[in-house]
């Protein structure tokens, strides 16, 4: 039995397996299947200052090796998230470790949400994940994650607004993801998570219309994994802060690959839709892998790439 604890400096997790924001609801949706407190953490769906409707439908389309989505960050807003039993109060009763994904349409809004979460629930929240990479909303999201100056503004604003540990979720839709990781580190982010979905499009050839009402969406699933592995390795070489690797993880072997590339922890996303039990299988696989390879701690895996 290897030591599965992972250290992010300002916080520790019982194991390196999380569930990615946007693929796990607010946690309770999956607590009907298993005890979600067994996970390293759950990253809940993006929260902003006010409720938001999200995009028109259809919002999802299946493609080879994964799917496209353009949900558009539908959500209850911070007030309801903090006080309604379907959200944070209910999830905390499960004993789960909660990381809250936050977004806004301006840097000030990001900061406002962060400050509010800290003021009202700092003991219930392990960290905040700053979403500067959603490709499916016009203002906010990717606009901040693909412009170095805007990224700096948002991350700094959140940093100044809260003492909670910060994770910056990076967009793969840039020329150099390492540049954005360096910005996050310089602005005081305690960690980076990558990758968000790849901007993509699918067309129904019979109707000659895009399969998503939003026209474009984010590609996720096993098709993106090699891209994500390359990016995690690039970022690992560029920054000192710990990395949460994600992008197409379907099983334990995929997760181990991310850790070898440089990730301290991983998050399961689209695979939750296929099989809700994947995150638990990943935890077991990592444990067995460490035993087989004589590793006493899972931290030995991080960045253990030999060439």
């Amino acid at each position, binding site marked *: 039995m290897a030591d599965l604890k992972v250290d992010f400096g300002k916080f520790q997790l019982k194991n390196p397996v999380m569930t990615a924001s*946007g*693929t*796990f*609801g607010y946690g309770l*949706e*999956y607590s*009907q*299947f298993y005890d979600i407190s067994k996970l390293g953490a759950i990253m809940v*769906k993006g929260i902003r200052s006010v409720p938001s*409707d*999200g995009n028109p*439908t*259809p*919002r*999802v*389309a*299946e*493609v*080879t*090796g*994964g*799917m496209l*989505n353009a*949900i558009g960050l*539908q959500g209850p807003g911070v007030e309801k998230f903090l006080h309604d039993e379907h959200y944070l109060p209910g999830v905390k009763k499960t004993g789960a470790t909660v990381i809250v994904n936050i977004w806004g349409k301006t840097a000030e809004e990001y900061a406002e949400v962060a400050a509010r979460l800290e003021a009202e629930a700092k003991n219930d929240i392990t960290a905040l994940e700053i979403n500067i990479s959603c490709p499916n909303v016009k203002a906010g999201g990717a606009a901040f994650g693909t412009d170095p100056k805007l990224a700096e503004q948002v991350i700094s604003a959140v940093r100044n607004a809260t003492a909670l540990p910060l994770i910056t979720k990076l967009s793969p839709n840039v020329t150099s993801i390492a540049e954005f990781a360096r910005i996050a580190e310089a602005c005081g982010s305690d960690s980076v998570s990558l990758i968000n979905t790849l901007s993509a499009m699918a067309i129904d050839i019979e109707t000659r219309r895009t399969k998503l009402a939003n026209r474009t969406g984010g590609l996720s*699933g*096993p098709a993106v994994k090699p891209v994500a592995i390359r990016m995690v390795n690039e970022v690992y070489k560029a920054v000192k802060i710990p990395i949460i690797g994600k992008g197409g993880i379907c099983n334990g072997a995929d997760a181990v690959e991310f850790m070898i590339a440089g990730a301290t922890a991983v998050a399961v996303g*689209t695979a*939750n*839709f*296929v*099989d*809700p*039990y994947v995150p638990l299988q990943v935890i077991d696989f990592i444990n067995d892998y460490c035993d087989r390879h004589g590793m006493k701690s899972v931290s030995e895996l991080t960045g253990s790439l030999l060439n």
Partner: protein
Amino acid sequence: MPNCTLISNERMHGQYFRAVFDAPEIATDATPGQFVHIRIDNRLDQMLRRPFSIHNALDGKLTIVYKVVGKGTQTFSELPAGSVCDILGPCGKGFSAPAGDVIPVAVCGGYGAAATFMLTRQSKNGGVLLLGARNEKDILLTQEYARAGFQVKVATDDGSMGIKGRVTDLFPELLKEYQGKKLFFYGCGPHPMLMALAKLLREKSLDGELSVDHIMCCGVGACFGCVVKVNDHAHPGEWMYARSCADGPVFKLADIYTE
């Protein structure tokens, strides 16, 4: 999340199939209008689960009646008896059981009739199936409903079976025949049909529940992919999105938003 063995998977006619699974856990809990979310195979071009209305759940067996509409259902229709499928369910909110002395009226389009069938077992007062479809080839399950004690009325667009017209065109005859009786309506079918039904029920001050859905992904309320517009009761006249997989697929008539 049980792995269930396919007992049979047979073509009814045309593109319509009936699959029966040995699924005791799901069959025990299932109520009319709920669905199961089936992982059809491990192919990379169809990773996601497919939702199917529960047609029947009895004696440990789960029956679904489906139409081949795309590659997922095509693959599913080719699975032989003995195949094992990973099935999530029963999922979603189903129809409420007919209460007291009401007579349930299922108003369905095509294979939407699969989703309301279990109401026949819950009703103590019989019931009615109003079934509409493009033509007689898209009419199914009428004999099963009749055997279960439901009166069946059919409408087809081309008049090849029943009256020529829409399923809503069966209402004048129904309301005349059941004058003075307490009716409660259960709708399942294509979206435009359901919207027309919702408007008609409101016009006539009748009540019911409608099964409304959209392309699904997770099936458990996590991804917000399958949302449909429902009335936002806090802001009259406005709509909000609800998850058809978890908040529905069955919604009360009062919640159904019609443009």
